[in-house]
């Protein structure tokens, strides 16, 4: 195992703010991971603890089975050989792109070669003599990646790498960076609040909420079998099926269980496993789908449908396999 984290906790403000609470996880070499969570979930704290920019209050961090951080031991960031790509790139403004890339290389002999390799890798050949402010946001992000990769780290952490970019550039750069990292074979950890980014780039997703690790799984498994409604909601909007609503669908709920469905798992089809009569209150065109307000008895909720029903009284249903029970 490349990185092993055992019962890691970190508090701020003299213990008032629990940024990370008893987190344990393992990362394997060569794989790509996404740490997914909303702001304040503890994902950046976890990344900073791994990199050595913070030290833990409890728990241990092992890199290649060597203890690098604990309550009584701290290997400084400069000695961990973990690459870090910062959210705002943190390119040194007084250095050229070439100087930025060679900054962390101690071997004088192969500096020139490494720069050429890295510039080629990130598709920025010919940009070596420029200064950071002369590049676009996407180009600066690539330079930041090249600079971190130039030191040949065993693990690279990318803190919200796409958050400063607009949506079109975001998708292009995401594909590019994923390709670059695959070529190098380095283990990468993406810190992100965007589930789409996480799905697109990660072999495994780690979900954090309120400083706790909720689930670590492959994207497909996490999507199909989330362990909590919170995890499920990160990927799609959910509807909580109350007992009164389940009764309308003639479904027998178990006591102490909570039932959820993704909004697009409803269908205006009487052949579904469970269905009920519903009236359509309103429908709004959202581009990819219609957002339709449904009323069944006293319950109202919104569903997503590719088509707009032509009548106001409809039969709506869902398949049992799509039902999420927690």
């Amino acid at each position: 195992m490349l990185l092993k984290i055992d019962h890691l906790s970190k508090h701020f403000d003299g213990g008032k703010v629990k940024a990370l609470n008893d987190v344990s996880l393992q990362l394997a070499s060569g794989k790509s991971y996404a740490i997914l969570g909303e702001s304040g979930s503890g994902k950046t704290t976890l990344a900073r603890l791994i990199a050595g920019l913070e030290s833990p209050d409890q728990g241990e961090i092992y890199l290649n089975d060597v203890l690098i951080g604990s309550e009584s031991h701290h290997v400084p960031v400069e000695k961990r050989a973990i690459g870090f790509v910062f959210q705002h790139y943190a390119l040194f403004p007084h250095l050229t792109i070439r100087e930025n890339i060679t900054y962390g290389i101690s071997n004088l002999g192969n500096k020139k070669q490494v720069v050429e390799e890295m510039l080629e890798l990130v598709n920025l050949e010919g940009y070596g003599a420029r200064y950071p402010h002369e590049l676009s946001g996407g180009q600066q992000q690539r330079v930041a990646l090249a600079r971190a990769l130039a030191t040949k780290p065993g693990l690279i952490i990318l803190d919200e790498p796409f958050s400063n970019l607009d949506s079109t550039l975001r998708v292009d750069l995401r594909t590019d960076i994923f390709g670059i990292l695959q070529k190098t074979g380095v283990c990468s950890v993406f810190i992100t609040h965007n589930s789409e980014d996480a799905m697109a780039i990660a072999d495994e997703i780690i979900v954090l909420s309120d400083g706790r690790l909720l689930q670590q799984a492959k994207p497909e498994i996490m999507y199909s079998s989330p362990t909590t409604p919170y995890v499920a909601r990160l990927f799609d909007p959910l509807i909580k099926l109350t007992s009164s609503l389940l009764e309308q669908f003639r479904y027998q709920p178990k006591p102490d269980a909570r039932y959820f469905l993704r909004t697009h798992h409803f269908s205006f089809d009487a052949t579904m496993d469970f269905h009920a009569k519903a009236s359509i209150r309103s429908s709004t065109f959202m581009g990819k789908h219609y957002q339709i307000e449904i009323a069944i008895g006293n319950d109202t909720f919104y569903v997503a449908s590719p088509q707009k029903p032509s009548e106001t009284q409809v039969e709506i249903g869902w398949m049992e396999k799509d039902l999420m029970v927690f």
Partner: protein
Amino acid sequence: MQRRLRQYANRNRRDFNGWSFTALAVTLFIGVPTIFIFVKLFSGPGESWKHIATYLLPGYLRNSLYLALTTSFLTICFGVGSAWLSTRYEFPMRKAFEWLLILPLAIPSYITAYAYAGIFDYGGSLALLLRQFSLTMGKLDIMNIHGLAFVLGISLYPYVYVACRAFFLHQSQHLIEASKALGKGETRSFFKLILPIARPAIVGGVILVLMEVLNDYGAAKYYGVNTFTTGIFKSWFGYREPETAVYLSALLLAIIFGLILLEQWQRKRKKFVTEGKGGTALKRIQIRKKYRLLFTAVVGLPVMLGFVFPVLQLVYWASLAIKGIQWDQLYGVVLQSLLIAALAATCCVFFSVVLLLAGHSNRLRWVQQFSKVGVLGYAIPGAIIAVGVYIPGLYVDKWLISVFKQFFSVKIGLLITGTVIALLYAYVVRFLAVAYNPIASGKQKVPNGLIEASKSLGKNTLSTFWNVELPLLKPALLGSFILVFIDVMKELPLTLILKPYTVQTLAIEAYQYASDERIAEAAFPSLLIVATGVLPVIFLNRLARKD
């Protein structure tokens, strides 16, 4: 409880690194005089204390208090008034006044005091001028406590001006528009709204003024006013009782710490003051044509009083004395002054950088808090620091003499108090904050991400500082150097106590000529100090404008 203690000990052991040690060592090194004086407060005064406490101390207290109150009042009038008028209204020369109003800071208050004594003297410049118009001047004695308060007021108002101007510039136009919409006119809005919300800025500026008032020795001595600081000198040199000087210093130090606490308290309050965030900047009002010159005259008054008149008087004196100037000797004094100031400024910048780096790279919060003690020196009057340096320095000197005699059979002199070492050390103690603050504020502007990025690329703290922070901090380092340089050039009480016999500075030269009533000869060194002060004042203003 036991577990918590163990956790605390573990973390301290883990996080105590070389930088923590450096931070503690530098802070203790810089803090020696302050700690020494504080400790001495508990060991009692010397024999003449009873006499001083009975006959002199009430007078020191009364005079110091009167000076503090009157100077505060004058600096508020000049400082707040000129700051508001030059921020709110558009009139001829307004832009020039932005920096002209700061110029009095370039003249040490004791030199302004000499100049005014010359202006109002019987047969002085004013009398001569009036005689040209066949007028005579009644007796106007300025060399008393009221005159001293006036001189300190016009010399020190820029502290209040700078603080208030920065505050007014950050106020929103919406605030004053809201006041006007509620029926208050321009003048009432100023007194009812602007003045109360500017309180933190005013208090901040006035506290700096008070510290300077308590630090003053040269002006008070020349005008024959006994204050706490002159009392320290009298105990030291008059009664030959260092213990009493230390005791007086400790009392004054307690007052200063009271002021520091007051300042911190009011700074906390500042957070609750409404500031015009997100609003539009204050719009300037065009003055009607017939009033424009009046505004120029009103705002120009403090500049005339605090800079132009004293400088003209000095120039006049210098023209009288120019033939008698011994240029070789003056050249030597200038060289010594520049060298000492440059050395002191370099030391201050060096220790500031070390303290900042150590504070930043040390991972223990209590060490970081403790290291703030290192920059308290600026609040402590020079005379106190001098006493706090001289007496421990003498202990070390005696110890060194005995060590050299015993082990090497070599007879040495006073290595610390007999050379510039004690003087330089005292300058570092006193002016470290002057160098530290601009560098610290420059460092704050270097994004933390750059430092973390450098470290994540394998560079340690020193390498990161050298490669990333230093190139970005160059203007701040230069600014710090210049500010300390000029403060050392102007410094008087500390230099008077600690300078070796062979060393002479421009400030001491001016003071000695003035003390010997050879006031015209004091003008040339005084003008040189002013000249070296003008440039940094403009630089300071530019720096503040950028901020």
